[in-house]
């Protein structure tokens, strides 16, 4: 019964207050977060990278470790953002009723959605930066050239937040997200060019990968991290923007329906 007008989709300054709320929570747990942000890429790079490097050698003209690290720069954004936009958002929406409390202030659903998307993207940038540092220390990428990845990480964060955030209003429990993680996020992680170029996939697989956001993020991040020429950056950027924008609009709709019933 909720009819939305154009102004219901326009976020205001209140979205920054939502973002700052999340920053404040994150700062309280900063040590745990940072350890995880650094720990995960180190494990991937050491276990997978060193393990495979000897057999694979080079991939697509890059040493395998470099190939892998430049893909992890954005797949880490995906994991971080997806987790935040599913589990954390659901926690704030349902058991904690944080959004109900916020909706008794001048903020509106659009502010909550925009603030959460912004925060997801911020966490994505933090995760990506951790990998930049680890990969830099291992001599896999060089600065300052690789810093171009940071805006891509932000855009990737927005895209994944947009991809995932519309789901939580349909969830009845956390289990719902496990399905999505296992059936969508993990296959995307495997098949979007992080571990090997998607050319090795059958045509249908390539087509599927190119519809999903991670492939486009990898296509932007890898050349930037390795100072190679970008191919079709506008297309990739637009796809990511589209995910972010469509996800935002759907989220305002779905969260309004769930929160304002």
């Amino acid at each position, binding site marked *: *019964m*909720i*009819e939305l007008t154009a102004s219901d989709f326009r976020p205001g*300054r*209140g979205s920054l*207050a*939502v973002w*700052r*709320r999340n920053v*404040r*929570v994150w700062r*309280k747990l900063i040590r745990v977060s940072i350890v995880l942000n650094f720990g995960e890429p180190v494990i991937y790079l050491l276990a997978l990278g060193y393990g495979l490097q000897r057999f694979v050698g080079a991939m697509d003209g890059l040493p395998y470790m470099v190939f892998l690290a430049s893909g992890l720069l954005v797949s880490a954004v995906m994991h971080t953002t997806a987790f935040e936009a599913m589990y954390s958002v659901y926690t704030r929406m349902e058991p*904690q*009723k*944080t959004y*109900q*409390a*916020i*909706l*008794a*202030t*001048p*903020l*509106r659903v659009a502010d909550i959605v925009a603030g959460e998307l912004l925060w997801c993207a911020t966490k994505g940038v933090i995760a990506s930066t951790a990998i930049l540092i680890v990969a830099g220390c291992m001599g896999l990428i060089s600065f300052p050239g690789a810093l171009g990845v940071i805006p891509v990480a932000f855009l990737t964060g927005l895209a994944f937040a947009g991809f995932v955030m519309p789901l939580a209003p349909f969830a009845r429990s956390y289990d719902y997200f496990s399905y999505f993680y296992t059936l969508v996020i993990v296959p995307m992680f495997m098949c979007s060019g992080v571990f090997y170029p998607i050319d090795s996939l059958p045509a249908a697989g390539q087509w599927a990968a190119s519809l999903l956001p991670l492939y486009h993020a990898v296509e932007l991040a890898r050349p930037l991290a390795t100072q190679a020429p970008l191919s079709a950056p506008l297309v990739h950027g637009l796809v990511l923007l589209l995910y972010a924008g469509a996800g935002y609009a759907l989220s305002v709709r779905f969260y309004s329906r769930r*929160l*304002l*019933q």
Partner: protein
Amino acid sequence: MRGRSSVCVPVSDPVIEFAHVVKQYDGRRVVDGLSLRIEQGQCFGLLGPNGAGKTTAIRMLLGMTHPESGSIRVLGHAVPEQAHRARAGMGVVPQLDNLDPDFSVRENLSVYASFFGLPDNTLDDRVDWLLEFAELTHKQHARIGELSGGMQRRLTLARALVNNPGLIVLDEPTTGLDPQVRHVMWSRLRDLQQSGKTLLLTTHYMEEAERLCDVLAIMDHGRIIAHGSPAELVRAHCERNVFEFPRLDAPQQAALDALPEVRLERSGTSWYAYTEQADPVHDWAAGHPQLRMLHRHHNLEDVFLRLTRRDLRD
């Protein structure tokens, strides 16, 4: 209503106005043509049995759920369209606490203030004052989970005041509190009233409504069935004398019922005789010295029970 300019609000405008508001859930009219006005500085009590539609009315007033029809104006703003503007001048104590478990007591206040766009640099004094108001200064660094129910409720009230609102909406502010804490709450609410704020509160405690409210509306099935000051309601809807009988056998029931101008009702396991004239009942009771009987004056609870009479619901 909708067409009226909201640029300048004349003093005589009500703080809250509902006109013929309808809200349905699953085809059922939970709020059914509700109309009411709350004036500046009033303490307005909304009473009604479980499921009467009180919380739904409050959620509509906040723009947190949209009515099917009717119009709502709050602080000069059309709701739900401009509800966010109205909320800037309101404080809300929801029926169920939704304090933020990610933060300490003090942070709950400062984070909430940030949602009203209040600048951080002016905040410390205000937060200190609110902590004192809620008698929670000694707990300011505690986590929410470490607070008792009464402390959480006080913190929720303090949180509702961060933006120094002119209108405060309280949905069952004292449910589940012990008598001590309830009295603290009452004195806080009276302080707020005396400082000129408009209060809308729901409660299931008739004593609370009688003590605090200038005007009451009794709601049932989404409609207002009685309206007026506590004294007016009691006078209009209930005989002056009430006799309570824990036990009455059938002949006694018949005898009481037969007395002139005595109304006999059963509520729970007890019987109640309502009458303007006490003497006939006293005379009758004198002939039954074994009978347990309590004589008292009528009160709001009698009115409530009478007007909302029916079996338990929910």
